């Protein structure tokens, strides 16, 4: 009792406005994240919205069996993982490098222009991005094939039907679209670095490269680490809108991912009625894998650096 009283007087009351500001966030998570978690039981039920979540019959692990016994399960998991891993290898560092480069620009005007130009594609909707990609890569009228044919005398390549090109196309399009947007957070982190450090370094005779290497990069490391750990949480999920727009049966081999499978099965599939049970089961699987990886990566990060999520 005394403890609560003490907490109230010392902690809560003096900070009451901060707590008030914290309240909407807390409510958001309770209402939209914690309460709906109860719905996970749909993954183990033959769910019918009419009968209701609680009264729908239990089916045990049927939906999981359904997914894992699909001849495509392994291919789907592999493709999802690979797209994410390649995305991390190529897509993750580019905004960082870009932010660093931008930071080194002396002309304020030029810097702003470049930033706006690279930021712009983020506002294009996916169908437009996909349309651009299809146009660029068309074997008869695409600029890339025209260059291949006219300048290098090669046969035109029908890129979008070749599974070996799909990952490159997908990741490049995504990097192009989101590079400017992702760089913003690093640019914000850069402004947080104490300018006196740079001044001291200049006095000590550090050149530009050394300043980046020993001040800017270490200053960015916490942000990079946190973002990297967070991105591990979605290692088994990948944005499907661009895939749906770009893939076709010829490229299923590398382009078909868990999300598109659930989409075809649930929404576009034969029968048309969304198979909510299967969707939930797959979603649960993705989240569990995400949670395990995030914990793993976090503990590694904690061990080898000072930054970690918790």
């Amino acid at each position, binding site marked *: 009792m005394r403890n609560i009283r003490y907490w109230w007087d010392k902690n809560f009351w003096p900070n009451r406005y901060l707590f008030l500001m914290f309240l909407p966030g807390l409510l958001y998570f309770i209402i939209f994240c914690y309460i709906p978690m109860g719905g996970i039981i749909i993954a183990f039920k033959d769910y019918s919205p009419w*009968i209701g979540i609680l009264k729908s019959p239990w089916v045990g692990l049927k939906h999981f069996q359904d997914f894992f016994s699909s001849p495509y399960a392994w291919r789907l998991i592999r493709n999802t993982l690979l797209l994410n891993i390649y995305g991390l290898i190529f897509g993750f560092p580019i905004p960082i490098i870009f932010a660093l480069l931008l930071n080194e620009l002396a002309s304020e005007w030029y810097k702003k222009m470049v930033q706006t130009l690279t930021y712009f594609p983020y506002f294009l909707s996916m169908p437009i991005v996909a349309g651009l990609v299809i146009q660029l890569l068309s074997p008869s009228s695409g600029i890339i094939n025209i260059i291949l044919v006219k300048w290098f005398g090669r046969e035109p390549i029908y890129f979008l*039907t070749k599974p070996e090109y799909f990952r490159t196309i997908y990741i490049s399009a995504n990097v192009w679209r989101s590079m400017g947007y992702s760089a913003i957070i690093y640019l914000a982190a850069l402004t947080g670095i104490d300018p006196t450090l740079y001044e001291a370094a200049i006095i000590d005779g550090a050149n530009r490269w050394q300043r980046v290497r020993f001040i800017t990069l270490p200053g960015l490391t916490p942000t990079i680490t946190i973002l990297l750990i967070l991105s591990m949480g979605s290692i088994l999920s990948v944005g499907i809108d661009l895939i749906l727009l770009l893939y076709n049966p*010829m490229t299923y081999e590398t382009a078909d991912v868990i999300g598109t499978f659930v989409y075809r099965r649930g929404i576009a599939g034969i029968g048309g009625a969304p198979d909510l049970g299967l969707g939930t089961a797959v979603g649960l699987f993705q989240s569990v894998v995400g949670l395990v990886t995030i914990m793993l990566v976090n503990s590694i990060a904690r061990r080898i650096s000072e930054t970690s999520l918790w």
Partner: protein
Amino acid sequence: MFVREKLVRLVVSFVLLFLLSVSFSAVLQSKEPLTFAIGSVSWREPKEESVFFQEWQKRTGVRIKLIKMDSSAINEKINTMLASGDLPDIMSCTRTIANDYGPQGAFIPINKYFDKAPNLKKYFDVKKNPWLYGPDGNIYILTATWPYLAWGWVWNKKWADKLGVSAPKTIDDWVTVWEKVKASDPKAIPLGTQGTGLLYQFFFPTWWGITSEGLVMERGNLRDPWLTPEMKGLITFLHDIYDKKLLYQEFLTATNETFYSLIAQGKVFSIVHYKGVPYLQAKAPQDVVNALETLPPPKGPYGKSGCDWMGPTSWWGISITSKCKDIDSAVKFLDYLFSKEGTYLYYLGVKGVTYEIAKDGTIRFTQKVIDEAKKANMDLDTYLVTNYGINLIFINIPPLDPKLHILHAKAYGQPENYLKGLLIVAKNLAKYRPPIWLTAEEQKRVNSIMSNISTYREEWVSKFILGKEPLTKWDEFISGLKKMGAEEVEQLYNKGYERYLKTVGKPKGYVPPIKYDLTGLDKIVGLSK
């Protein structure tokens, strides 16, 4: 004394009047309007105050209140309604949802009320229209024949005349013509289409004479055409025309815009595609559009032919929920749309106000509405939907038979070559698959197997056509299909088919015929003078 009596009388009469009015208003209130949750899209928004809804209520004496469900999230909306149990009296619904949740008690079996619905009884005759029944032999949703007439086999007549070729009658004739086109201009696209689905839609009927929803009949049993040797022939044929560059090389990935801009530039000699001249009209020069001509579908290698169509079951329809407070009125209300007057009201509005019928049977919109539309600077179609509620989508009932479809297209002033094309397609409709009454369990099993099979099939077929896999691997492909359960699906379909045959008391091999009246259309669209 006298005054007192008068006062008493006055009071009594007031009390009586009060009671009367209370009971009267109670009677009125018991006739609360039926709630009608209807699918809505922004460009065809249903409006309660529109002539269509007002007239529909007036003629049936049933009052309704519309609840609009935005089409972009309509499945979720329906699911939420089902989950909360807060259902309207009548609602737009899909066949799958209605047939899934109907037997669970969410929707009423409308066939139980057919005695009070003469038009429904006539239309939903189990012997004539068995496709419209749910898996357990009940009707939980009113859907209707809505034969979406695809565009058919279209060629550029001017181009053909220049080459001096006559209209191909068989698929081999077509190949000869395409080869001539290619020989005269290596850059030309002899046959244009988009995606593999369209290939099925056009080549499937040519090989089997049935629509692409196909299941072929073999000695009275249903067979999955994919497991037959004829299918190998079809895929080989498609590979050959792709290989010879007779088929548009980018058909797998081209977008609508790309494909149609090629047509507009006059680079495509012949087209198999579901979108028609009206779609092209605004985008292509008039001489290109006018040169397009629909030909009767060619005879395939087995002497069969036909044009694909949507079949007698539309996807969307209307259901009456188990929460309906006045089922009799709801049935009466919906029954009206299946009468001739109701159908005309839905598609054309009110006679004398929005449309007139000429002596030869041609339907015309009145000069009044045409002028109004011009004044409002809208095309007629949009104007009639927004201001009169005519021809909304999402209801998908009442039945639109090919005759009305063509008359309707003419009333909207569609170009003559398009109308002729529609009639040619209507005259050559491919056969429709037999009715299959699966139980909900069987349907689920089929869906589960087919979701893998369709991925597998699409993948292999694309590879076969584009030549990434040789056709010598066909047997490997088929054994994969079988491993995934293609034969089990075949068996389930046969079970569902036999269930239907037992219900109607027909022998094996029986498929109810679908016939449409097309009399007088030749003259109306200008096919014969």
